[in-house]
């Protein structure tokens, strides 16, 4: 027998599942071939070590496994409820969404209008920056209340709640 064939049969040989004649052929080969003998020895030594590994005491883990499962079931039952809610509410989804949209848009528009009505825009014409600074100080306006409108001389001053 050749080494390749021995390699293929090695595990069956070690397990003792080969017929006696094949097994004896391998015996003979291993006696003569140091490479296969070494391979065989390595495997049997490894197996001996692995088989020697102690059987372990199994700790009881049921309580925590059970707890975790219950927790996850609770979480997923909430998800089921939500999905259920989604399926029932599906036929109304479009009308509900459009109502909500209308509400939001009109709300925004209304509040903007109300805010705008509180503001006073004072359009004042100035010739120089000194004049602007003077005007701001004079009227006790916040420093950032002046905004440019195009050309240097034309400014509008916006204040909240009017001045």
């Amino acid at each position, binding site marked *: 027998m050749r080494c390749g064939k021995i*390699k293929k049969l090695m595990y069956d040989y070690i397990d003792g599942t080969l017929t006696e004649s094949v097994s004896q052929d391998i015996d003979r080969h291993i006696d003569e071939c140091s490479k296969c003998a070494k391979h065989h020895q390595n495997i049997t030594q490894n*197996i001996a070590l692995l088989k020697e590994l102690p059987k372990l005491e199994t700790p009881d883990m049921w309580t925590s496994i059970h707890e975790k499962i219950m927790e996850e079931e609770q979480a997923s039952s909430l998800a089921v409820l939500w999905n259920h809610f989604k399926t029932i509410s599906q036929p109304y989804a479009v009308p509900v969404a459009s109502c909500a949209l209308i509400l939001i848009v009109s709300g925004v528009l209304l509040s903007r209008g109300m805010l705008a009505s509180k503001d006073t825009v004072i359009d004042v014409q100035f010739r120089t920056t000194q004049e602007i600074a003077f005007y701001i100080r004079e009227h006790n306006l916040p420093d950032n209340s002046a905004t440019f409108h195009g050309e240097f001389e034309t400014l509008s001053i916006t204040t909240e709640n009017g001045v």
Partner: protein
Amino acid sequence: MVEEHSEELPQIDEATIRKCQEGDKGAFHMIYQHFKTKVFSTAFRFTNNYDEAMDLTQDIFINIFKKIKMFEFRSSLSTWIYRLSVNAGIDRVRKYKRYTLTSMDHPDFQATNDFKELHKEHQVKRADENVIQDENAASTHEALQRLSPKLRAILILRYIEDLPYSEIATVLKCSEGTVKSRLNRAHIKLKEVLEKDSEVGR
């Protein structure tokens, strides 16, 4: 010695599995009782200590409960549970990058504290056993930790869990030929690691 429970193990029949698939916790508890030792001893060899092994075992059982609906009776439940366990073990090793193929090439490779602790744990838990055997066990376990998770899996299934090649092939979803060739690689690697270790140890 650890007592053998095999006679007391509740038998898992098809009805129990079906009940568990419907979410029956009692049925799941029976499955847990039946497989906890197998799952824990498999998980343990993918980790460095009892705590990690317990953590991994819990994750595996929760996963079993979640996925048992998908079990289609095409293999035995045992094979299916081994598959989930081994996959979880391989995942965990990859996630925590516990093994480094290069570490054994470093001359100053340190026998990590984890392994020493493991060794101690063995001594605490198995005070009746002789110390040499514990030392051997610790160094074998340590060597296993430095094999790639796939090679480790095959050694665990074959020599610790004693599964036949055909079942290993089903667990790992490969052919028996692949099982044997991978087993060969695993043996060569294990021998390398063990020899390197004994050189470093001296």
